[in-house]
């Protein structure tokens, strides 16, 4: 549904997005992760047809965005970071103004606007948008992004201004949209936010795609390399005796606890050895890389 090919954007000699190759399947909820200034928003601006790429191309539903931005805009919805509205108009009037660009009838517009306002709990709000709180603006932003019932939804830092209740409602909404078969592209620098709703992620750093896939897969790919070694955490109630196995490379001991680096997964053998010595095993597991730590390490690069 979304594809970029060697997508590049250069601003005043500075490369914001550098040869990005990305693919998001239809119906996927995709998390676009990366630190501030990684090029996430610039990528979204190119995908939504708001700026033209310096090089490469991007396609949404098979349509090349730079060649036919209007056609793309008709099938997508976009919630910008720090979304803004016309402060002298109510939420309903703002949505009405945007909805007129889709060539719908007045009746269709009225129904869709009412539906959207109800969805984001802004129905019955008569205040002007200029008097809205940031959370209300964010919710109105979601409504304006969905005013045309889009096939693809681009959300840039969608929970930035939402309170916990708003964030929960946002997650429910994304799940509902995923259930309807819509493709959702969520850009964020907050891993927990992406983790909560996205099935696949792409990690961007300094304009380049560092990894793409499932969250665990990306974490494994990015984890510091330890060759083919497996790290096994072992904890017993009693003092841990010497462990002997040809597969063991080394052991980091700490009283009743140890991390065993082995050439293969030897948990069965270790368990048998410890059991035969009458020891009580409290914990034995393969140590997975901590996703937060892995991503933070990439952010700090």
């Amino acid at each position, binding site marked *: 549904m979304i594809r970029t090919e060697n997508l590049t954007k250069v601003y005043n000699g500075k490369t914001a997005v550098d040869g990005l190759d990305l693919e998001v399947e239809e119906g996927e909820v995709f998390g676009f992760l990366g630190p501030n200034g990684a090029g996430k*928003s610039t990528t979204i*601006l190119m995908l939504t047809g708001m*700026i033209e790429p310096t090089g490469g191309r991007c396609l949404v539903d098979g349509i090349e965005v730079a060649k036919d931005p209007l056609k793309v805009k008709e099938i997508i919805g976009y919630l910008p970071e720090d979304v803004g*509205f*016309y402060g002298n108009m109510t939420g309903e009037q703002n949505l009405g103004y945007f909805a007129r*660009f889709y060539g719908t009838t007045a009746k269709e517009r009225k129904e869709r606007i009412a539906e959207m306002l109800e969805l984001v709990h802004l129905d019955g709000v008569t205040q002007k948008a200029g008097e809205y709180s940031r959370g209300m603006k964010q919710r109105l932003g979601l409504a304006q992004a969905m005013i045309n019932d889009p096939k693809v939804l681009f959300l840039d830092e969608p929970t930035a201004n939402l309170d916990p209740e708003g964030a929960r409602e946002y997650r429910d909404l994304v799940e509902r949209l995923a259930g309807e078969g819509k493709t959702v592209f969520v850009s964020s620098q907050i891993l927990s936010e992406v983790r909560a709703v996205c099935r696949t992620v792409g990690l961007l750093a300094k304009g380049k795609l560092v990894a793409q896939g499932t969250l665990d897969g990306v974490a494994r790919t990015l984890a510091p390399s330890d060759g083919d070694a497996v790290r096994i955490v072992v904890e017993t109630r009693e003092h841990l005796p010497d462990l002997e196995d040809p597969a063991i490379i080394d052991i980091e001991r700490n009283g009743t606890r140890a991390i065993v680096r082995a050439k293969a997964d030897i948990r069965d053998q270790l368990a048998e050895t410890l059991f035969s010595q009458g020891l009580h095993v409290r914990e034995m597991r393969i140590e997975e890389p901590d996703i937060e730590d892995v991503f933070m390490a990439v952010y700090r690069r």
Partner: protein
Amino acid sequence: MAFDRVLNVARKEFSDHITSRRFIIVLALFLVISAVSIHEGIEVYNAQLDTYNEQLQQMTTEIEGPYPGWMPEKPSIMLVFLFMMSYMSALGSILALAIGFDLVSKEKESRSLKSLLSHPVYRDEIINGKVLGGVGALGFAMALALAVSLAMLLVFSVVPTLDEFAAILIFGAASLGFLLAYFAVAITMSTVAKESGSALIYTLVIFAVVSTLLPILGTMAADVFSGDPPEPPEMVAPMPTPAQSSGGGYVTASDDPRETDPAWRDYEEARKAYTEKRRFISDVSSILSPQMNYMVVSMAVTNPGSSTMYTAYGALQVEPGGGLADALGQVWMNIAALIVFPAVFFGATYVKFMRMDIR
């Protein structure tokens, strides 16, 4: 570019303008001052009409008067609009600047432009819609001002003829052209500046330069480059007392010893060349000033028979001609300048808006 999308933007902009407190306040002031100026103009018109009637009556009773070739000139109701023009050039420009200076910068500040651009509309459609909405609002203000002035004329039992009505419409179009000139400056600065505050400052600087500084510089340049005016020759015969007319009418030519004196003829030619040179230098700088162009065009429309009008920046001259068409023909450069000036600024706005960084 689809016109329905341009129209959608224009409709919203027009509605924003005419419902904004800023526009309503300046418009109200504009209309009140227009009404006052029209009232003032009607009083002067009525006084001139009384004088005209008295002179006509004198002609019918005293056929053998002191100036046998003299005919009084009937005052035109367009005189009333000459009064309106002076107020229009001050308050109208403020109205135009007020609605334009934050038209784009406000959208950048509120980030609504990004939201708008995420929907199926091209950038050129947005800027064209904004300009159209602004032109509509200024046209609305101008139409109201003309309607008020016409209503006042009718209240004072002054009914314009068809020709005068056409002249009023042309005056309205020239006034709208003048308003558009400053609206174009304001919207350009709004597109160039990052914030509305800066846009307002830039707009006011350009306003001061083109409305005040340029005409003054033009007059100064004319003084510098034309040198000293030629001195008249010694008079060989006493000059006859020039004929005075209280109603601004014409006096037929009488024998003048200056016409036969060769030294005086040389002086006349040198003076004419000097005046032409001064006028050319002054005109070159004035053509860049919407204020000056508006004054010249308005003078041609409102008083096509007159030859000179004195302003704060010096004398504006229009050769006395036959009628409105002749008068307009003489000021075609000023009319063209009133069209070209906003067109240049609108063009600059368009280019800048199309290339604007919306991150």
